[in-house]
């Protein structure tokens, strides 16, 4: 598990070297998520329609090491946009990756942008 999780590191907007074209905006459910494959990474992408924002983070649940976060429910916790892991409802900030209802390690988050109806995720390599 630690080998897998070590592949996921938060990328800050100024560290982006590659903008990966993931899919069309229509491929993602409104106010829900789906998973994107990039090299050997699995990235959860959320179309937060109510905020008109998009978020990307690792698909790996840091609690148990399973690829499930994109299937989680999104919403907010005291105003912070979050995703709830479908396995045990651990919630993570979509902005900082921080665990909001416990002290599990944070998840990695990635920059995301929409251009011409396409979703792009930012990677540093």
């Amino acid at each position, binding site marked *: *598990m*630690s080998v*897998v999780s070590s592949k996921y590191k938060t990328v800050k907007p100024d560290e982006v070297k590659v903008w990966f074209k*993931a*899919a069309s905006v229509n*491929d*993602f*459910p*409104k*106010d*829900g998520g*789906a*998973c*994107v*494959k990039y090299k*050997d990474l*699995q990235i959860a*992408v959320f179309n*937060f329609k*109510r*905020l008109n924002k998009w978020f990307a983070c690792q698909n*790996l649940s840091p609690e*148990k*090491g*399973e*690829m*499930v976060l994109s*299937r*989680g*429910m*999104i*919403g*907010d*916790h*005291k*105003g912070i*946009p*979050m995703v*709830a892991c*479908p*396995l045990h*409802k651990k*919630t993570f900030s979509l902005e900082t990756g921080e665990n909001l209802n416990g002290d599990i390690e944070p998840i990695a988050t990635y920059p995301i942008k929409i251009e011409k109806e396409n979703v792009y995720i930012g990677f540093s390599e």
Partner: protein
Amino acid sequence: MQTVIVVGNGMVGYKFCEKFVEASKNKEYKIIVFGEEPRPAYDRVHLSEFFENQDAKALEMAPAEWYKENGIDLVVDERVSDIQRGTKTIVTAKNKVFNYDYLVLATGSSAFVPPIKGVEKEGVFVYRTIEDLEGMLAYAAKLKETNPNAKAAVLGGGLLGLEAGKAVMDMGLEPHIVEFAPKLMPRQLDSRSSQVLQLKLESMGLNIHLSKATNQILGEEYITGMEFGEDDVLDVEMLVVSAGIRPRDELGKTSGLEMGVRGGIVVNNKMQTSDENIYAIGEVALYNQMIYGLVAPGYDMADVAVNQIIGNTEKLMPADIDMSTKLKLIGVDVASFGEPFMPASKGHSIIFENKTQYLYKRINVSHDGKKLLGGILVGDASDYNMLHQVYLNGMAIPEDPAQLILPASEGGSSFGDVMDLPDEAQVCSCENVTKGQICGAIESGEAKDLADVVSCTKAGTGCGGCKPMVKDITTATLKSLGIEVKDSICEHFDYNRQDLYKIIEVKGYTTFNEVLDSHGNGGHGCELCKPLVASLMATIHADTANKEYAIQDSNDRFLANIQRNGTYSVVPRVPGGEITPDKLIALGQIAKKYDLYTKVTGGVRIDLFGATLNQLPLIWKELIAHGFESGHAYGKSLRTVKTCVGSTWCRYGMAESVSFGIELENRYRGIRAPHKIKGGVSGCIRECAEARGKDFGLIAVEGGWNLYLGGNGGATPRHAELFAEQIDNETVIKYLDRYLMFYMRTAKPLQRTAAWQERLEGGLDYLKEVIIEDKLGIVEDLEKEMETLVNKFECEWTQAVNDPEVMKRFNHFVNSDEEDDNIVFVPMRDQKMPRQWS
């Protein structure tokens, strides 16, 4: 920088580190910890759990990384062999030398093995470490190969001995407990409570031998039996010695520290030994001429030593140590507090005993009847927390103290209010949190609800036993501040489920966003309110989970149950448990084709595990082609109606339970409710369908059906209550329609019928008035609403596989047809299972 060396990495040694890190923040200390065992400290109190999962990691107090993160050098598998007090150094068995400024001895104890002839034979174990257990497991497995009915004995009927008895039982050996004293747990229990415990344990399959002094262990190379007297022999093939503990005090002896006559390193109330730079804590320390074999005093000692070393010298060990304990032994509650055995000269005892239910409660009160001095609880220790508080704080007790232990009468608890506790009352003993701290956190505004209280005081984060009390104190404090404690569903709505039900029904909302925008608090919803609204939409508009899938709970979103490794299980409906050979074959062929693990569920249908997201629609297409439909095993909805074979085949059957069970299952399939619903139909009073353990249950009797309502298994099992007798099929359906609809309208989220019914004001009588006599004038509506749901039923999976838009949901990746490569299965008994969680 000063160096603190801790010798011993057991529970108390670990606690010392934890408290030291917390207390010495920003101060310059170097901590080095030596452990003799090959792994970091683990929870020895729950050692017998190792047999259930054999997962040593699960027992860890903290992972090895924790020590590193906190700047602690942890050296495992290395025993400290000598202390040179003159040069303030220690030497390890590997001849390494380390300097210390402070030395903390937390070497604990070892199992005491009495000098019985033959005790060195193979097959004799002690019960202390994970390695001991692994040795026992390997030996037991070998025994069972030649003799599946092998017997094992445990020498010692104390606390640890009974734990070891459970371990032996879990290994599949016939367990025997051999105790020298005339009763079990002689240190904690009086004779009568000990007898009650004995009866209970015997009823669970433990063989108990009391007043037995073991002369010798029989056998050549390995144990074959135990001899007590000339003709008194017990044949056993394995023996676990659990006859007490001896402090691991060798280092104290060799370095010339002051020792107790019968062992143990003498400490003062600062936990200092006769050398002021050396501390001793836990089971190696002799304090007040006593070795304390409980973990709580050990933790207190660790706390005192930490404070002394960092300079808070006013923190001392109290002279009186509370030896109260509450534990679950082999699933049986046992607790004692204060003075459990009190001589008649000091007060009176009040005893409640009910051997038919294996219950025993004793309290000791002062002669004037005003003070609680101690007590013993066996079988049910749910009152322990409160009794313990009353004792600790010398609180007033009822005029008739018997009320403290008599079974609760109407009107509930005889204890006063939690708010009567004094501020210094210790509510959480694991984290040492007082009532005053909890109230203070709320009064200062730091904590606004229960979750805040837990996170800022840490109350309830240890064993969790105090949680109900923490909750009560929190609620009462909030109330006293004039803050209304709402049962609103989450931060996004100020309404409870019943309010929202009415709002959606009256306003006719059909989407989550409509409800949130018009009646929410301005947020965006969460994992609590979204599935709740989804469930209400399903009840009010007969929507399936496909309609607004992003607000569905994960299982409803993918119409399958997510499993441990992110794969899913598939459960087609098998109404009443009746299935044709052709359908059985189809299930087998499909399971084989997709390499699925198959198992019969607790609800008498067949569960296919290990389907990936991508496989789900493929599997369901085939199932539907063979005439199956969704079993809604993933929903808060009707699961199964379990049936016995009834008069169709059974020579005792009074009615066709299968036919009626199928009719009921097909009637209520697919409806969404606050929680899952299960039914059962039995063809006679032998009750083979276990119908009274279900939300609704029917038992055929002369002249019709007896209808039982509000039962469940689960964490709090409850038998359903008899609601109506000798009624016909039509009346059953009429009452069930009304009952279920009334439940769906008024229950809290995730509240099963049992809990709902129990909290219904007026109880069963009120329920009868509403459902049979129509006291509220709503039965016509209830029936109509249910009729609509029944008529609008549609199989969600049939909808899904016929809609390409819906099918897109089941791709693991949006940009690739590949499957999740993170899923790993391992073989198990000719099938497969997910690899263990690391």
